[in-house]
């Protein structure tokens, strides 16, 4: 089984500042890692994914994340945030070769302040 811990439930940051949303996972098998974004009253949108290869992955809207196997982390970063980035962000994990079940963290609310 897998588990995901998102270390910060809320992250306020000023517009144009950098941000890092932290995610740690636990698994006894190899995993795929994901970040999703959820805007108010909407479903989930995939931001980026790590499947294999380069540990630095780039996603949509200028976000990137780095997979660190030794620290079992997959932190999400953006060098300069915008007001429109205000949303809930979820880290998720799936065992490789699984039947596509995702295990999510509890989410981090990113609020970008003017």
């Amino acid at each position, binding site marked *: 089984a897998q588990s995901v811990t998102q270390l910060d439930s809320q992250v306020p940051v000023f517009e144009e500042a950098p941000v890092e949303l932290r995610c740690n996972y636990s698994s006894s098998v190899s995993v795929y890692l994901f970040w999703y974004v959820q805007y108010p009253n909407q479903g*989930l949108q995939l931001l980026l994914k790590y499947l294999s290869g380069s540990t630095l992955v780039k996603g949509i809207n200028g976000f990137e994340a780095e997979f660190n196997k030794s620290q079992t982390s997959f932190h999400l970063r953006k060098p300069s945030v915008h007001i429109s980035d205000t949303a809930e962000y979820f880290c998720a994990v799936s065992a490789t070769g699984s039947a596509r*079940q*995702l295990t999510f963290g509890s989410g981090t609310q990113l609020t970008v302040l003017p």
Partner: protein
Amino acid sequence: DAGVTQSPTHLIKTRGQQVTLRCSPKSGHDTVSWYQQALGQGPQFIFQYYEEEERQRGNFPDRFSGHQFPNYSSELNVNALLLGDSALYLCASTPVGGGPETQYFGPGTRLLVL
């Protein structure tokens, strides 16, 4: 191309009642997964349907059941509703042969149990 569609968008029920939620997968997708997202929490996997069979199940009681039709659409049924069943119910579909990275989420059905 329509994405994943879910109906209804909102629903209010009372304790003890039964509810049916519906999901139409994205075109070309054959696998449907259901997730429950309680307020302030990350989504939790309920079950997954493939070839009209339940392939995987999360830690949910038997009150939660489902069905997949030959056209790949799916229903989630919840019997004997409890107040704690109030949540956003998300449907996700995956294409033929696709992995978790190809999972596509619908907008969800928000269920309120009074």
